């Protein structure tokens, strides 16, 4: 056990799995960096956000494959490699770029098993960067996980801390279906206790971050930390909050949410995706369907407004759900009558 960042945990998961299984390889743009630069023979980047640092030095260019800027070919090749028995980890540098290559994910990788039967197993991981908060602008800050989760055949995870990042990535690599692994760019430097050995955080298992009795807050990705920051302010108001991190959106741990809502009678979801057809609205819909009689107040979803992520820092700060909004919404639900 030692203190590691979210970034280090992701790298460590890949290293351990690549050591364990030679079929695992990594492919993407500038994942080593420095190829084709004269006599330079090192790692220039290890990924633009440093998420593949050290892999090329240990595993070499056979299994750490830098590519031209060609997302359709990268994702399609990874899908084809997975269908053919390899276990690719393909990096889609920013999730916003899914627009360039979605056919290969949506119509190909995600459907192979259904269309072809068991022979269509597709053990593919797509690691991709989500999230607002660093001024990256409208085409580098989105969180399209609700769109990913909408697709049958595609699994989706959204780690909120270093421990889960490592365990979920190991599970994703060992899983025999395509998994969208959504890394949040604002969390890369976050530190936490992380075991040194390999371990799995199972896909489809949520976690109770904090127990409480009055309201259930389900928070996704970066929103988990923001929800945690509300705890003391809510306690000052006499509100005992239970916070759940689903960790994986597809498959989704419905039971952990139902059990909690049966106890608290109130549900607030905090979700960074666009509000229309957001993952949060799906959670509230399932809860209304399954445990309606436990509810003491309407369910509520907090998301950004229905607009792209702005470049201006003051607008971006307003865009994201924050402590004030969560406290206000919780207060409203707890005092609803």
């Amino acid at each position: 056990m030692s203190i590691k960042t979210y970034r280090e945990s992701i790298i460590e998961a890949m290293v351990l799995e690549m050591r364990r299984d030679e079929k695992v390889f990594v492919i993407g743009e500038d994942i080593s960096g420095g190829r084709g630069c004269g006599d330079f023979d090192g790692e220039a980047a290890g990924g633009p956000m440093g998420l593949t640092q050290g892999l090329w030095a240990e595993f070499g260019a056979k299994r750490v494959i830098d590519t031209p800027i060609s997302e359709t070919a990268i994702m399609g090749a990874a899908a084809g490699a997975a269908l053919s028995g390899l276990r690719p980890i393909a990096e889609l540098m920013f999730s916003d770029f899914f627009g360039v290559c979605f056919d290969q994910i949506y119509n190909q990788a995600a459907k192979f098993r259904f269309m072809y039967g068991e022979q269509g197993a597709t053990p593919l991981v797509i690691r991709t960067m989500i999230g607002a908060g660093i001024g990256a602008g409208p085409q580098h800050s989105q969180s399209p996980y609700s769109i990913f989760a909408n697709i049958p055949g595609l699994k989706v995870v959204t780690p909120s801390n270093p421990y889960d990042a490592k365990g979920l990535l190991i599970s994703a690599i060992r899983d025999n279906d395509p998994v969208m692994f959504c890394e949040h760019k604002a969390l890369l430097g976050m530190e936490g206790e992380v075991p040194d050995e390999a371990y799995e955080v199972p896909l489809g298992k949520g976690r109770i971050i904090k127990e409480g009795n009055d309201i259930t807050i389900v928070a996704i990705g970066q929103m988990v930390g923001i929800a945690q920051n509300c705890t003391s302010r809510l306690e000052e108001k006499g509100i005992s909050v239970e916070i759940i991190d689903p960790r994986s959106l597809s498959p989704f741990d419905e039971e952990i949410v139902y059990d909690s809502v049966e106890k608290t009678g109130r549900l607030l979801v905090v979700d960074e995706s666009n509000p229309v057809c957001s993952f949060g609205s799906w959670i509230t819909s399932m809860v209304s369907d399954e445990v309606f009689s436990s509810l003491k107040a309407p369910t509520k979803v907090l998301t950004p407004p229905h607009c792209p992520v702005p470049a201006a820092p003051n607008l971006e700060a307003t865009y994201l759900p924050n402590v004030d909004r969560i406290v206000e919404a919780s207060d409203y639900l707890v005092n609803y009558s």
Partner: protein
Amino acid sequence: MQLSRDKLLDAYTRMKKIRVFEETMRDEFAKGTVPAFIHLYIGQEAIATGICVELTDQDTISSTHRGHGHCIAKKSNLEKMTMEIFCRADGLCGGKGGSMHIADLSVGMLGANAIVGANAPIAVGAALKQRVTGENLVSVAFIGDGASNQGAVFESMNLASVLKLPVLFVFENNGYAEFTGIDYHCGGGDIAGRAGGFGMPSYKLDGSDFFAVQEAAAEAVERARKGEGPSAIECVAKRWYGHFEGDPQHYRTKEELATIRRDFDPLIIFRQKVEEAGLVEGKDLDMIDEDLSSQVSSAVEKAKNSPLPDVKELTTNVYEEGSY
């Protein structure tokens, strides 16, 4: 072909403005005043300028993440452009786009673009005006060597070719896509040759030399206006600085960085050519230099002192006002 003195001074002004502007942005970035990553155009000034001096305001360009130079060469309003980079309310896009999304439709600048390669089809779309309404216009896509590998770029070249559209595919080969060299990323290594495969005239030329670029642009623009379809111009030039500001560039040697400044400075090359040919006197260019320094620093000061957008603007311009 001889260019008029006015056109030469205009070209020099645009190139130098890009240089001074980008050097200033570099300083500002180092001071931490710029709200996001920026990708500098220094070293490639002759490309945007050589192309844009052949265009009118009705002609359009579509740009890239490295778009400041394109904006200036297309004669965007410098103050409003600077404000956009600083994400200010009065910026060209109200501060919601920032450095990688500056657009100025008033001068035919259809936008910088943070999705590599995405601007190529957009340029083709603008060129459709010639076919649909008979409008006389030329449309340019600026495309990096790295971007040349995107499917969208290949599809655009083919579409423009089969429809004979007035498009210039201007490939800015600065040798790098982020931290990857062209020797690694470009199959066949010959961007112009690949474009030629789509059946369009293609050039490969020295992109540090304004005159080389401008001459090819003039020919390609003329063909496009006559309805003879697209051309490709591969301009080989140097990226003086990192991929973005803050890139430590371990993958480049000190010698490379030193020699490019000496041997591939588009401004020095231009000065030498015009002075040797006796077309313009050095002191005329010096005067332009002085004027630009104060223009640029005043634009930057103004931008930094202007307000950020009102938070009410967060949800405006998602749809047409009143329609949603």
